Structures are given as structure tokens and as C-alpha cells.
């Protein structure tokens, strides 16, 4: 293939020449004054989505006040060659040395392709997939046990519901999502064991039309408290509020979308996590490759309780939250069956939030109406 090689070389040579010209002609004012540390954030969706990406962007915003730290951000970056080149663009043009490509799908193969090429830089991925025997040491992963947040949402929902029917709009039947659905229902059943929760899977992380249809269908079916696990909860929250349902948030604070109807929400607290990681980097301390935490470690937080939350609900939420923070609290505990009659946990058996068995969850617990396939 010498002909292709020649074309390529010619192109690159031409590119280099143009680059030289570009530097000479480059307009003033677009060069970035970099501090000692430039941190790059990459989001898979818009950073004002009221959800997954906004939660990360709020974490990034918290870094901007740290002395000597420059934050660069890019939104709507697909999980394709796009993200690989976005990382490299941040490295080459902005001098980023600490990168947070935040979407789950960025890890394999994209971060894994870039990390060996830039061994002196640090790639931090949200999702918890790093393993010491398989992955480069300049890659780290972090994740939060947000299922407990959905459990507390469930308690708020259990007190607020009159129909004893809850609704859950979910993206895909994968372990993380199933954990949230199950936790939400179990939280509600800690209030009243007769409560059920209907789940509707939309099949996509971000598909506004189906999310609105699902929220409406849940309301039509009698659900009067609705929560979700999709990238952007905005549509679900607005639709549910318009149907006079109560709302439990997810990912970020959505109380502004229905101030009277919003009970509380399970939020990521990336500001504390990112601040800690950046401070470690500035102090030249290593960031651990594998970091996880829950409410106690400040990885997740609850939205302030809304006006529709009763005193009884508030008391139970606060007591349970204290138990979770103390440690050892388990939402998934026996006796428990899934909604097909299979035994999940026998009497006395329990799975704490840190239990690895939960990471391959493939069931919906008894009381959840819906199916994983």
C-alpha cells in the first residue's frame, strides 16, 4: 500500500506546514492561559440536562474556584472515536493532564486506547470498571452507591402515595438501573408492604418522547409518585408534575421542575469527589485507582425535602439516612423473592451496598411490576 502511505505522508506534511502558518496567523485572544493543572471534562449529553451530565458539570464547576486549576469542558461527545479525539484535543490544545470522561461507555475501548498513549496523564472514569490485572495504572474509576438514595426516595414515596402504586421510568434493564428500581420499591415497602411499583423501560438513555409516554402511561395506570433512571429526568419530571403525581428526583436536583410536587431526590455529589481528586493531584499524592462511596463518603446526597413531605416521612427518612451513614445497612435482605418467585435472599441473609453480588443484579424484586426482558 505504498500509494496510501505516500498520500498520508503528503497530507501530514501539508498539515504541518499549515500548522506553522496557523500559529503565525493565530488570532490573539483564543489562546488559553493555563494554570498549573488543567482538568478536562467530557459529557455524553448536554451539561444542563437536569440529570447525569448536569451532575458531573456541577462537580466540574466546583473545581473552578480552586487556585491554579483550569477547567475545560465538552458536551455531547459520542462514545465513538469522537471521545478519543476529544481527550487528545484537550491534551494537545489545552494541556489537560487530568481527564474526566464521564460517560460509562467511554471506558472500553476509548479510555483504554488513550491511557497507554499518554502514560503521564491521568484518566478518571465514572463507572467503576477498573481492575488492576487488566487495565493501565494511569486510569482510575469511581462510582457511588446511589441505590441507597433511591431507597430513601422510596420512603418519601411510600408516605406520599395514596393509590399505593408507584411508577419508575427506566432506560435499560442493566444492573445499575435494576438496583435503583428495587431499592425504590423496597424503600416504599418499608413504609407500607402493600405498595407496588410499575416499571417501564424506554430502551434508550435519552429518548424524550418515550420518556413522556412512559410517564403518562404510569399516571394513567394509577401511579401517583414517579421517579426515573434515564440520563435526563427533565421530561419525566415535567410530565409527571403535569399529571399531578409526586416526584422523586434522580441524578441531580429537579425540584425547580415541580416545586410543590417534588418530594426529594437521589443526587450525585461529584463536587466533593472531584475536589478531593484535584487536591490530591495538586499535592502530588496518588489518586487511588478504584474509589467508591455512598452517602457517608459524600459521593451521593439527597435533595432537600420538599413541602409535600409529611413529618412522619421526614422522621423515617432521617432515621434511615442515619442508619445508612453509620454503615452496614442493607436494602436487599431476606426473606426476599424476585417478581417471578425466585428466592433472592433467605431469612437472615443480606447484601450490603458494597456487596459485589449486587453488581450483576438481573432481577426485579417482588412488588415491582415489569420484566427485565
Amino acid at each position, binding site marked *: *500500500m505504498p500509494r*496510501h*502511505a505516500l498520500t*498520508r505522508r503528503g*497530507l*501530514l506534511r501539508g*498539515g*504541518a506546514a*499549515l*500548522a506553522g502558518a*496557523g500559529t503565525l*496567523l*493565530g*488570532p490573539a*485572544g*483564543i489562546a*488559553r492561559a493555563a494554570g498549573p493543572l488543567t482538568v478536562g471534562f467530557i459529557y455524553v449529553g*448536554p451539561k444542563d440536562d437536569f440529570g447525569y451530565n448536569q451532575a458531573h458539570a456541577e462537580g466540574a464547576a466546583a473545581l473552578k474556584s480552586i487556585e491554579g486549576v483550569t477547567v*475545560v*469542558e*465538552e*458536551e*455531547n*461527545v*459520542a*462514545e*465513538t*472515536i*469522537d471521545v478519543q*479525539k*476529544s481527550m*487528545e*484535543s*484537550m491534551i*494537545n*490544545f*489545552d494541556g489537560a493532564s487530568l481527564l474526566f470522561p464521564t460517560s*460509562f*461507555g467511554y471506558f*472500553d*475501548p476509548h479510555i483504554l486506547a488513550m491511557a497507554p498513549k499518554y502514560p503521564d496523564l491521568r484518566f478518571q472514569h465514572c*463507572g467503576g470498571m477498573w481492575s488492576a490485572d487488566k487495565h493501565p495504572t494511569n486510569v482510575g474509576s469511581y462510582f457511588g452507591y446511589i441505590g441507597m438514595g433511591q431507597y430513601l426516595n422510596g420512603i418519601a414515596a411510600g408516605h406520599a402515595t395514596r393509590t399505593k402504586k408507584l411508577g419508575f421510568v427506566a432506560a*435499560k*434493564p*442493566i*444492573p*445499575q438501573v435494576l438496583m435503583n428500581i428495587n431499592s425504590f420499591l423496597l424503600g416504599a415497602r418499608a413504609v407500607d408492604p402493600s405498595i407496588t411499583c410499575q416499571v417501564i423501560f424506554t*430502551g*434508550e438513555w435519552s429518548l424524550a418522547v418515550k420518556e413522556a409516554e412512559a410517564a403518562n402511561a404510569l399516571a394513567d395506570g394509577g401511579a401517583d409518585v414517579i421517579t426515573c433512571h434515564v440520563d435526563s429526568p427533565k421530561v419525566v419530571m415535567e410530565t409527571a408534575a403535569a399529571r399531578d403525581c409526586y416526584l422523586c428526583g434522580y441524578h441531580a436536583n429537579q425540584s425547580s421542575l415541580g416545586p410543590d410536587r417534588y418530594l426529594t431526590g437521589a443526587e450525585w455529589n461529584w463536587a466533593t469527589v472531584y475536589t478531593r481528586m484535584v487536591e490530591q493531584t495538586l499535592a502530588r499524592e496518588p489518586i487511588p485507582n478504584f474509589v467508591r462511596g455512598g452517602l457517608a463518603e459524600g459521593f451521593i446526597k439527597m435533595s432537600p425535602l420538599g413541602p409535600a413531605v409529611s413529618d412522619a416521612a421526614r422522621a423515617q427518612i432521617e432515621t434511615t439516612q442515619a442508619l445508612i451513614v453509620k454503615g452496614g445497612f442493607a436494602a436487599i435482605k431476606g426473606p426476599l423473592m424476585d417478581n417471578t418467585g425466585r428466592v433472592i435472599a433467605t431469612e437472615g441473609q443480606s447484601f450490603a451496598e458494597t456487596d459485589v453480588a449486587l*453488581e*450483576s443484579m438481573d432481577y426485579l424484586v417482588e412488588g415491582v411490576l415489569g420484566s427485565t*426482558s
Partner: protein
Amino acid sequence: MTAEVGLSGPAGLAPPGALAWVARRAEAVCIPLGALIAGLAAFGLFLAVLGKSPADFYALVYRAGFGTPFSWENTLSRTAPLLFAALCVALPARLGLVVIGGEGAIVLGGVVAGALGAALGGGFGIVGIVLMALAGMLTGALWIGAIGALRHYRGVNETIASLLLAYIAIALMNHLVEGPLRDPASLNKPSTAPLDAALRVGNIAETEIHWGLPVGIACCILAWVLIERTTWGFAARIAGGNVRAAQIQGLPVGRLILGLTALGGAFAGLAGVFEVAAVLGSANGSLVAGYGYTGILIAFLARHNPLAIIPVAILLAGFEAASGLVQRRMDLPDATTLVLQGFVFIAILLSETLYGRLRLFAPERWGRA
């Protein structure tokens, strides 16, 4: 008429007819180029209204898309799927068919290639890659070819059918990678089993540009030869100009429609194959990246000329390569690149009305009666 005499004067310097030949060809280059510049200028105005500097914007686009060796690598590494996707629009368009659902063929071609690759395992090497490519192409050919068949046999509008079938293709892909084809180890990102290293398509020499790019360029050249230099292509162009006339002439319109839609689909399927074999390493939801839709814009910009697709795809890939730097430096949202593409697209569509109307390009003006 003295002016005209003056203008046609240089005709005497060249062989008779040469200037007329140039004028005719120049129209096909100057009008799209002019429209491109007009679109960019209109977008510049839009930026200025927003209080952002158009000069800074275009300087950044140039720098991040074409200004450094890394920028070229960035641009060219995004080009391959766009070439294939644009061919899927351009080939049926020569018959007058507007097929906008190439995304579906890309996605399904990728899934079939990924599933076949996972089943093959190692041990096949280059033969395995060729098998995957053929399977992906066949899938794409069947998918878009079916749209051609619906059009020809049942009179179903191919534009609507292809667009809606793209949604069905994506749903089918989701069902397959989350169900029957799912690798049980892919917990939170349902995917087919990872391809064996022997089935991965590598990069060209020391670049990070995979072999999809030269294959894509070769496909564009082949498609050009087919359309412009074969009787089959000639028949297709006749049918594209006037179906009734083509039928009366006894041209096999049905076979042309099925053949060109299937060929376009095969190219789109190949885009999916390269995404899986060169970039993703397994088939999953990341296949839905919108290449099929960018391909529509490229094909229209290139006026459905397969050779022109090559530079236009590189230009559009450059815009996308620059979108990140523009976001970061000018604090513009990601949608900026989409708005830019929209401006250019409208300008190109408007420019369609200019063909044959500008006397500057009229061959008779340049010495041909």
C-alpha cells in the same frame, strides 16, 4: 453586445470548445463552492449577532480541523464512516431517490459483523475480517435494497420508509445486543462478545487513522467509475432524469433501483463493520452515532458525485473535529456545529436553483454555438 465579444475573446487562445468545456465543468464546482462560502458567511453573521467573533470561530475551526498534524489525524480518523454514509445517499440519488435512512444499515451492518466476529473467534485472521465485511455489506444491501424494492414494487415513498426503518433498525440492534447476542460479561453496557485481536482492523502505519479511510476512498472512486463511466451508470442517470423516458427506452428501471439502493446499503453496512472492527471492538449502542445523517448533508453538498464526496466528507469531519475546541474556547454550545451545518445545507439547497441560469457558465458564451 460588445461586452460579450470581449468576454469570448480569450476563446481564440485555446483549442475550440475547450473553454466551453471548462465553463460547463466550472459550474459544477463554482456553484457548490459559492454556496458553501455563502453558508459560512451567513453563519458568521449569525455568530456576530450573538456577540461572538466569526473570525475567531473560523480560525479555531481551521486550527482544530486542519491546522496541526494532530488536527489532520483527528479529522481523517472521523472521515471513514462519513464516506460510506454519503455513498448510501448519493447512489440512490442518481436515480432520483432520496434515501435518508443509511443510519439503519450502518447499525445493522455493525451488529451482524460483530456477531459473526464473536462467533468466529480467533484463528481466521484476515479471512475473518473479509467475512465480517461481506456479512455487514450483505445486511446493509438487504436493508436499503428492501427500501428500493418497496419503492419499485409497491410505490412506497423511499424517503419516509428509509427514515422509519432506521428507527426499527436501532430498536432491532438494541434487542439483539441486549438479548440473544449479549455477552453476559457486558453488565452495564450491553454488547456482543469482544472481537478477537486477530479480527480487529488496525491503523495505517504510525497514524491513528484506521484502514476504513482508504477503503472508503476506494469505494468512492469505484462508485464514481460505475456511475460516470459504465453503461449501467449511464442508464441510471437517464432513469434519474426521467423515469418514464427511461422505461420507454426499455431501460431496466427496476433492476437499477434495486441495484443502486442495495449497493448504497452495502457501503453503509461497511461503515458499521469498520466501526465495530476498527473502533469499538464489539457491537453495541455506540453504533448509533448519527453518521447516517451527516452522510445526507455530505451527499447533497457533493451533489451526489462520489468523487466530490471525498473532499466534502473531510471538510465535514474537520468541522466535527473542531466542535470541541470551539465549545471550550468560545463557550459556544455543541449545537453550534449543527447550526453551521444547517446554514451550509440551506445554502446548498438554494443554490440548486442557479444551475443553468448563470450566463457566465453557458458553454455557448465561451465559443460553442
